[in-house]
């Protein structure tokens, strides 16, 4: 029973990380139709920045993390303005190639700067694990889940109840409609990119805190699961995507333990295919318009 509980907890931890990546993905996709394949690389960039600012520059860890988030937010704005905005009228495939190409550019840039090998990532989070009903939960695990819960709740609250969130939903529903009622679509897309890269950076820092060592490609496998979450939940449903991402984390862990570790990543893809086959709109999405 405790094994199962342990597996569930570590599944929830992974799931929380997927949720943070998925939210950013779906957010950008909904307002601009672009899939940001560089989300994982951006997460790694956030982790490396935090490491650089705390270990090399000598700032305190939390200050370094906050600064890294701010930098990544600005980086997201720049990516949108410099690379993706010029392509907004071109076929969406071009934007996909750009975000895919960004993966190797970002990962190479990290490697050039700070080495392609692994780097030790030290966090001030230490101390005895918490005991929750007979199960030990390490502090970093607890922090990961807490951060994911708080950010997700804040995010959904903002989307639901603030004027900015309303604009965002309007743009997601119809770009031209939003434009007609005077919403500055370009600005909404811009902010979405900033938020999405900042969320990626949060995920990156937490992943780094989990694994203690970081490499330029540290978040690539996480991203695959996050994508699966987005698709399984339905790309047009933020809540569905978040919930699916969480579930994937749990299922992945259970399968890896009870079936075989070999299936840890393969199961994600099989789930994805199964959902596409049986319920192409995603578990929580609305019916896809094209039916054949």
């Amino acid at each position, binding site marked *: 029973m405790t094994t199962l509980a342990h597996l569930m907890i570590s599944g929830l931890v992974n799931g929380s990380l997927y949720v943070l990546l998925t939210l950013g993905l779906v957010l950008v*996709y909904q307002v601009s*139709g672009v*899939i940001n*394949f560089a989300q994982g690389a951006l997460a790694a960039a956030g982790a490396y920045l935090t490491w650089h600012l705390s270990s090399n520059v000598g700032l305190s860890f939390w200050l370094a993390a906050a600064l890294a988030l701010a930098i990544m937010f600005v980086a997201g704005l720049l990516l949108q303005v410099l*690379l993706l905005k*010029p*392509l907004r*009228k*071109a*076929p*969406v*495939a*071009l934007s*996909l*190639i*750009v975000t*895919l*190409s*960004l*993966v*190797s*550019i970002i990962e*190479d*840039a990290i*490697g*050039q700067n700070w080495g392609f090998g692994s780097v030790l990532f030290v966090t001030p989070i230490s101390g005895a694990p918490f005991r929750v009903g007979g199960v030990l939960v390490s502090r970093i695990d607890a922090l990961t889940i807490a951060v994911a819960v708080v950010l997700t709740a804040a995010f959904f609250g903002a989307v639901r109840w603030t004027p900015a969130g309303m604009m965002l939903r309007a743009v997601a529903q119809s770009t031209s409609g939003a434009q007609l009622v005077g919403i500055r679509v370009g600005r909404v897309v811009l902010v979405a990119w900033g938020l999405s890269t900042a969320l990626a950076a949060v995920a990156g820092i937490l992943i780094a805190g989990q694994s203690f060592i970081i490499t330029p490609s540290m978040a690539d496998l996480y991203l*695959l699961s996050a*994508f*699966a979450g*987005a*698709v399984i939940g339905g*790309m047009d449903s933020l809540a569905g995507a978040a919930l699916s991402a969480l579930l994937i984390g749990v299922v992945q862990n259970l399968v890896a333990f009870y079936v075989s570790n*070999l299936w840890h*990543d*393969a199961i*994600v*893809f099989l789930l*994805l*295919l199964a959902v*596409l*086959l049986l319920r*192409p709109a995603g578990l929580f999405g609305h019916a*896809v*318009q*094209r*039916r*054949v």
Partner: protein
Amino acid sequence: MMRRPWNQCAILIALVVLVVVPWFLDDYTISVFNTAGTYAIVAVGLSLFCGRLRQYPLGHAGFFAIGAFTAALLATRLDWPIWLDLPAAGLAATLAGVALGLPTLRLGGPYLAIATLGFGLLVQDILNKADWAGGRTGVSLTPIWPDRGFYWLILALLVAGAFVVHNLRHGSFGRALLAARENEAAAQASGIDVARYRVAAFAVSTAFAGVAGALFAHWSGFVSSSSFGLPLSITFVAMVVVGGVDHTPGVIVGAGFLTALQQVLEQQPHLADALYAAIIIAVLLLGQTALARRLLALFRRIPPFAVGQSHG
């Protein structure tokens, strides 16, 4: 075609040059040509699907890998001759393509992109773990001909493939695909089984990728899982897009250009991937500027370089 004698003339001249040229080249250059040729076969097959449907699969390195490993294993373990294992590789990739295509092609852009991306990663993941197939350590083949011999085989298959794709694109098959893209309901109403056509176009592209993978295995003499990652999938799509999705000679030129670029960048091993990616982005962005549009429009008047334009 008959309306454009210049077109045919230029293609004929290019062909003659390509047939004759290996006698004047050193082994290294020929190997670059062979790489470009095998990639071009994939890109040409992909251009039928991308060009007519405007959808972009991101996992063709997976089908390329399936073809390469099928051929390598059949040739080394079962001693199959090349004329048997090439079609077998194509068939294996096609079966995988149909299996993937049936559930995913019903869906629009992002879903297809993600599902195929996942497929490519999955194939590499499986190969990495498949010790029986020598995935990670690799499989070595004894080349049956010198590089020059493969050059002509690759060229012949590329020309044949381009011919097939050209005819499919401009025949009833391509028109049906075009109709499916422009107005699915109307296409359906006029009796086009849209889903079947879409899967068929995808299957063609995977068959090309499989055969090209087998060719790659044979002429390079070595396959391992690490050569078939996501960057290769992106390269295939980039070749199609850079060359002009609907124009077969353009796609081949695109494949040649990007392969040459990769070779040049190899001199800078650490920066190669990033520079390559940056140049692709730069090409795509420059293509959006007004100047580039004007240049392209000018280009289109010169027959053989009808970049990005169909003449069906």
